[in-house]
């Protein structure tokens, strides 16, 4: 098939000459969208897994006037102990661990700066609570249990997490929709290019048809030509996307925000992207084939 010239001089078409470039651009955009979808999907999954079944209990110090420091600290420590005891005795609570002042300081460091004088600040004490997602107590139960402890605030991550995860999944769906739109645009481009090619080579196609060439023989010429162009373009597009993702991954890595989606892809995700050129070439080939076969039906 490749050792002899095609019966149709498709390489000389002005319209098909741009096909690899168009496919390259489309694959580039699709690969970026897909990478974002995969990164956000993985991050949302991590959030969902990491935060479900967790609560944070805050013991807010009583900073009212006339309350001396030592007394206040003792009161906060006592409230912390009381809350821990109540939590650990609550059925369905897997663990309740207080965060040390150092751990809290490191959490606040991005906002307050390294080396801040935390001792001088009245920061709340935090208890990291893990509950059994199936049998564990809900937010209201925990609040009721801790009602007698002074300065207690219970924060259920599930409420804001649910919104965050919904947002993340929405972005993921939109990214996949963009990939689908790009694929449809690619199909339309191939249909247009193939039809142009058929119009340009109508005379030769007619000769082949009258000589007795089956429709699939003629379609094969277009489909292999389109496949090669599609493969060439999509490989270039993927290479450009890989470079872009590598740069973005490096930049995102330097931000170091815990909730920011990691833009570095796993080997499996890279493998998923690597399938794109094959998929693009197949889509191009099948589209060209169907376009030609449908058009040839019009010939007597």
């Amino acid at each position: 098939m490749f050792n002899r010239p095609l019966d149709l001089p498709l390489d000389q078409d002005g319209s098909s000459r741009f096909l690899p470039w168009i496919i390259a651009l489309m694959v580039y955009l699709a690969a970026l969208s897909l990478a974002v979808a995969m990164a956000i999907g993985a991050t949302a999954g991590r959030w969902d897994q990491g935060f479900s079944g967790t609560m944070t209990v805050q013991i807010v110090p009583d900073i009212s006037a006339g309350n001396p420091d030592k007394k206040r600290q003792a009161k906060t420590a006592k409230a912390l102990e009381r809350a821990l005891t109540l939590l650990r005795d609550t059925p369905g609570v897997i663990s309740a661990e207080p965060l040390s002042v150092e751990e809290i300081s490191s959490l606040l460091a991005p906002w307050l700066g390294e080396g801040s004088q935390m001792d001088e600040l009245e920061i709340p004490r935090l208890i990291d609570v893990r509950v059994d997602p199936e049998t564990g107590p809900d937010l209201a139960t925990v609040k009721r249990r801790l009602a007698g402890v002074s300065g207690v605030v219970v924060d259920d991550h599930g409420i804001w997490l649910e919104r965050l995860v919904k947002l993340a999944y929405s972005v993921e769906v939109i990214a996949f929709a963009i990939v689908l739109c790009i694929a449809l645009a690619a199909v339309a481009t191939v249909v247009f290019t193939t039809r142009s090619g058929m119009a340009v080579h109508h005379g030769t196609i007619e000769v082949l048809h009258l000589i007795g060439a089956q429709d699939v023989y003629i379609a094969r010429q277009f489909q292999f030509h389109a496949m090669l162009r599609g493969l060439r373009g999509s490989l270039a597009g993927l290479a450009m996307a890989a470079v872009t993702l590598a740069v973005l991954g490096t930049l995102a890595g330097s931000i170091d925000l815990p909730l920011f989606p990691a833009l570095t892809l796993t080997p499996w995700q890279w493998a998923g992207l690597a399938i794109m050129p094959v998929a693009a070439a197949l889509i191009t080939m099948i589209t060209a084939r169907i376009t030609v076969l449908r058009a040839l039906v019009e010939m007597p």
Partner: protein
Amino acid sequence: MVAGVGSKMVRFENVGLRYGMGPEVLRDISFRLASGSFHFLTGSSGAGKSSLLRLIYLALRPSRGLINMFGQDVATLPRADRQDLRRRIGVVFQDFHLIEHLSALDNVAIPLRVAGMSPSCIQSNVSELLNWVGLTDHLGSRPATLSGGQQQRVAIARAVISRPQLLLADEPTGNVDNEIAMRLIYLFDELNKMGTTVIIATHNEELVSRFNHPVIHLEDGEASMASRSEKVCA
């Protein structure tokens, strides 16, 4: 009317043809051509010779009537079978219809390629045939670099390479002098003697008169048939 020497190969029954909504260019065409026969198709320019040939090689659908080829009604043939039928017909087009970007060898090889023959068989068959038509030195030449006569020989070689049962030629002598025209008709005569049914459309009455083959004459879209010894109207 029936003409020829063997079983019927082409049968037209009350065939009419019109282009779009225009008037009928062919009217009530009825004839039968037997396998192994040789016919000239004559008529003045615009009489419908090319249209009739196009109906025979299935490039057009008739507006009415029945066309039966090789014993099969072409109107009811499945699409794939129509292509099989076309491969049994060789056509020398009036303006050759050679594929410009292909060499003479590749042009002649097309009917064998579409029939699925192996490349090695194609190479030997095509080389042999191009040698026979005197184009050994032009196997790799593209049509644009060949003279009109050479292009015509390539077109003829392409039409006969797959040993078709029916050979159609549309004005094959239109662009050549009388001597080459005579040689071409003798070439078709030889193919006919080998069993190929031949129909040659021409307006060269002098050439037709030199051979004793029956004639289908078209005038004002209607056909009449006559042998060289006696002329019979339809």
